């Protein structure tokens, strides 16, 4: 009797656990089923390398994703090149340098920032940050790649800091003591022992930060100006994959080529984030298994 109940409960829990798998598969199938039909009508080469994105052109709709890929790339590059060093520095500062009082303030604060909705960041970028940048650089496109990059960096910093901080804190106290007991200074200990032994955790943090940046929608949507052109000036307006989907989906006709092409963009985006998340996951998992 009791073993019957036990079995029933186990099966019930199993069903719940399977839901995530079903959802992922559903997303997969759905994206592909909605996106792939477009390839019959538009070549994948033109999609990936086409420089024109004019979906609503009556004459000849163009679905070249390159401007969006470029936009995503440049914004991401700016964001990462700011957030990685800053994130690591802050993580090191919090976990190794700050005294306990500073730490007590900084840690929750950073966590709090991770919870702030992206639309708020976006609004800040749109109104305040853009003005600041404009005043500093004198550019005439208020909303531009730099603006988006900076706001994304700020959004990514909490993610990177808290994960990297975890990784650094997880370095056993014994390593620190061992190094100090050998007559190393604190800084030497950080550089030669702590950072090397938490490197994979930090790498994971960076990759997850990267995933967050690439997949971010609202902030870039509001901060970058959304011009679908390839431009090498970071002070020019750009448009990202995510922004394109967000802007165009509400207006698209269901089942149209444009609709399908939006799903193609989603597949592209998905592929990128999937790849990075997968690598991050691999690293994190190895970390967990070796117990460092």
């Amino acid at each position, binding site marked *: 009797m009791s073993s019957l109940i036990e079995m029933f409960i186990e099966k019930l829990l199993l069903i719940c656990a399977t839901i995530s798998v079903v959802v992922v598969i559903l997303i997969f199938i759905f994206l592909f089923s909605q996106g792939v039909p477009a390839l019959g009508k538009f070549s994948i080469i033109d999609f990936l390398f086409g420089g024109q994105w004019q979906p609503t052109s009556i004459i000849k709709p163009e679905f070249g994703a390159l401007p969006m890929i470029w936009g995503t790339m440049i914004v991401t590059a700016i964001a990462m090149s700011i957030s990685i060093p*800053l994130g690591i520095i802050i993580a090191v500062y919090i976990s190794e340098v700050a005294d306990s009082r500073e730490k007590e303030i900084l840690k929750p604060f950073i966590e709090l920032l991770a919870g702030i909705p992206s639309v708020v960041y976006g609004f800040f970028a749109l109104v305040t940050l853009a003005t600041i940048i404009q005043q500093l650089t004198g550019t005439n496109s208020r909303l531009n790649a730099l603006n988006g990059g900076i706001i994304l960096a700020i959004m990514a910093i909490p993610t990177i800091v808290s994960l990297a901080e975890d990784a650094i804190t997880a370095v056993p106290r014994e390593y620190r003591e061992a190094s100090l007991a050998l007559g190393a200074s604190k800084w030497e200990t950080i550089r030669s022992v702590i950072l090397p032994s938490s490197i994979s955790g930090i790498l994971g943090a960076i990759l997850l930060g990267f995933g967050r940046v690439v997949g971010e929608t609202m902030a870039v949507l509001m901060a970058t100006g959304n011009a679908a052109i390839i431009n090498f000036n970071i002070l020019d307006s750009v448009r990202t994959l995510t922004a394109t989907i967000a802007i165009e989906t509400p207006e698209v006709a269901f089942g149209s080529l444009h609709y399908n092409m939006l799903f193609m963009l989603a597949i592209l985006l998905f592929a990128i984030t999937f790849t990075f998340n997968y690598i991050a996951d691999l690293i994190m998992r190895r970390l967990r298994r070796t117990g460092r």
Partner: protein
Amino acid sequence: MNRKAMKQLVYFQIFRITTISIVLFLFYMLWTFVLNGLGVVNWTFLTDIPRNGMTAGGIFPAIIGTIYLTLMTIIFTVPVGVASAIYLVEYAHEGRFVDIINSAITNLAGVPSIIHGLFGFGLFVVLLNFGTSLLSGALALSLLDLPIVISASREALLSVPKSFREGSLALGATKWETIRHNVLIYALPGILTGTILAVARAAGETAPIILTATFFYRPNLPTSLLDGTMSLPTHIYYMATQHYNIALVQPLTYGAALVLLLIVILMNIVAIVIRSRYRKMKKW
């Protein structure tokens, strides 16, 4: 002072200055919202519908919409999420199947929110014909929240030492008895924390619901699951980018943003407080 100490001092000062600048910058950001939003946030603003082409009045429908969406998300995700976590931690044995579930969860967590939106739009709104509605939005949000709830619950369960389970089993308790009496209660604060964070995230999400649940202007409150709604995040987005007179409504936008910020921060603080209390309490 010798060279070693000198070098260390320089580095540490650079680190301190960097950290403080970033923190100040973020404080500045939060301050702009307080500064610009505090003026408009009052009782009317919170309880009135938007008026005069949204240039006046309040954000009541948006607040209610956000609450509805959030509550529904909780109802969808928490039972399934906690159950999944229990299965994974307590029952599943390492192996292919668990690997599949685990990578599904990490994947799901990594899917950009806009894709959840697009997926929700295509599946719930269009294919299943729920239309732009609370249901579609909540479902889309749930997909996004599910992995968060699962991970948090899983961490909480994993943090309960194996020895508690062994101790109970060795006394002749069954597995479920063990989980119910000697695992779940200790994991509960952790699960709660994770859930609150997930909820806060749901409350602030924009991209998924913008495609599935919300309207630019819909002053009357939703009466059924299939009604569309307004919500705070999308309201802010619309007011900041789509309104015909952005500059005019900017104070209102600040106000809405401040309210959203306060809601989200409040929930985060609650979670942080619960967690730190629980950490202090927990002695294993």
